[in-house]
């Protein structure tokens, strides 16, 4: 194995171990908060994966809901109780449902890519909302999952947190390896100049489709994990505002650091919870302002504070570069 791969695995493993250890000392409310931050963060990680190829999805709610509902159905209809199996079911279902759209979406960019992903997620929302079998706008509940056959009652919060940390930790490590890989670098080049990449002989469409499906798997797992943490699912999982929140975290984090995505997700969860408690009707205001500040002053996201060190070019050179950029 390559040195960088080993480093990534070890660093990731260390973070997972530290988080697990910390979890032993965390109160229930914090465990729940962290679990939600992780289960939402992994969906935003998918958004970031796509952003690295230059497209922004406003419809990750689609895979989030697909994963959640699939896991919920598998749990309730087929009596599958194991948490890990349910997470896998969520991820796989999201990918399967996304497959037909992948070649289609790979031909779009910019606003139209965003709008098409939005439309697809709203179609699912519309279907779920009116679906009596799936509980309509109320959705439905699922019971507590089991782990390796054992019940988790009594320690549910910690176990769910632990599952989130380990599973998403593994996915995060894998995503980081992918980002550092040859394909990852080609994706970044596509983001900068896809014409050139086509002319170098690589398929841009296939790259975007691949990123889309990877993001689908991540989103599906996130949806299933959220389902397990909440014990409940409803159509709002697929609503555009949910998708918007995933994009929000992705922009906040930037596309240079996997860890930044989860840090950003955690910040958002904390602000949301605390402002709901103490200053209701301000958390969206705070988030909106925060987003503007980041877009304006930290356009590469929070992650760029530590992951993207580069000397800023002199303004004159940048201006020339901007003018010469094609498209």
């Amino acid at each position: 194995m390559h040195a960088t791969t080993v480093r990534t695995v070890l660093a990731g493993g260390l973070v997972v171990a530290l988080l697990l250890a910390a979890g032993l000392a965390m109160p229930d409310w914090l465990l729940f908060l962290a679990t939600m931050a992780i289960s939402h963060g992994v969906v935003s990680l998918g958004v970031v994966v796509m952003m690295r190829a230059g497209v922004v999805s406003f419809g990750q709610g689609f895979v989030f809901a697909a994963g959640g509902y699939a896991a919920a159905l598998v749990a309730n209809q087929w009596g599958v109780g194991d948490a890990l199996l349910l997470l896998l079911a969520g991820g796989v279902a999201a990918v399967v449902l996304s497959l037909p759209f992948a070649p289609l979406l790979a031909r779009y960019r910019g606003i139209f890519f965003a709008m098409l992903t939005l439309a697809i997620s709203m179609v699912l929302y519309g279907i779920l909302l009116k679906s009596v079998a799936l509980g309509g706008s109320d959705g439905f509940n699922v019971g507590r999952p089991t782990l390796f056959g054992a019940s988790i009652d009594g320690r549910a919060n910690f176990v769910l947190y632990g599952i989130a940390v380990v599973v998403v930790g593994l996915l995060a490590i894998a995503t980081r390896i992918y980002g550092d890989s040859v394909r990852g670098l080609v994706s970044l080049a596509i983001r900068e100049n896809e014409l050139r990449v086509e002319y170098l002989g690589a398929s841009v469409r296939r790259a975007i489709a691949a990123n889309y499906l990877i993001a689908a798997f991540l989103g599906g797992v996130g949806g299933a994990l959220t389902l397990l943490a909440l014990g409940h699912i409803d159509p709002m999982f697929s609503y555009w505002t949910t998708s918007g929140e995933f994009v929000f975290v992705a922009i906040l984090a930037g596309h240079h650091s996997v860890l930044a995505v989860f840090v950003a997700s955690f910040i958002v969860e904390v602000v949301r919870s605390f402002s709901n408690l103490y200053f209701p009707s301000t958390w969206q205001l705070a988030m909106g302002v925060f987003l503007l500040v980041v877009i304006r002053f930290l356009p590469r996201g929070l992650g760029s504070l530590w992951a993207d060190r580069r000397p800023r070019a002199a303004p004159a050179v940048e201006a020339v570069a901007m003018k010469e950029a094609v498209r």
Partner: protein
Amino acid sequence: MSELALSARGLMKSFGAVVAARDVNIEIPVGQRVSLIGSNGAGKTTFVNMVTGYLRPDAGTIHFDGRDIVGLGPRRITRLGVARSFQIPQLALDMTALDNMLVAAACAEGEPSFWQPARSPARRSRAMALLERFALAEHAQRRVAELPGGVRKLLDIAMALTGRPKLLLLDEPTSGVSVQEKFPMMDTIVGALAGESVTVLFVEHDMEIVTRYADRVVAFYSGEIIADDPPEAVLADEQVRRYVTGDAVRAEA
């Protein structure tokens, strides 16, 4: 294997009322160095775009290495062995020169890996070697956005060569390059091609470059080829002097 690298017959292309190609016929044997000249809008870049699959001719055929390539996109044609550089260098501006070269090398090798590190020592040294061939090694760690135009041009061409193409099309390689750098740059490119029977087509406005580096010159005007001969003959041609180089105007005055 055909002895003709490129064979175009009866190419026609119009954009509305503008005729960019009117019955263009060219046959280029393997290893030849051909310069395409003509004033702006004469049809040179349209020809390059058609050969590289960016544009589809309205009529006519194009055969590369004996194979019909009309209708194929840039990616397929690149994989067949055709490479091209651009008038305005097409690079990933926010990435370093080395990263750009890594990408070029990766794209040339087939299915890029999902997990092998892009910047592994082996890949880096291969990419650095490629940069060194073009005297670009000193710029390896600099962002392309910070590099001067001539360096970007050379990098653009260097990237086009990573795939070891059989046919190389250069779109105005020395435009935007300072007078002192033009010849060294062309020498570097020619040097990098030494020993490989690469067919080169280059679009040029600088007649000194043309005379020095081309075996053959094809002159375009209004979408048609008005001359197709070795450089001395073409540059002396009356029509070429009137419509391309502008010498005729001065002579009459």
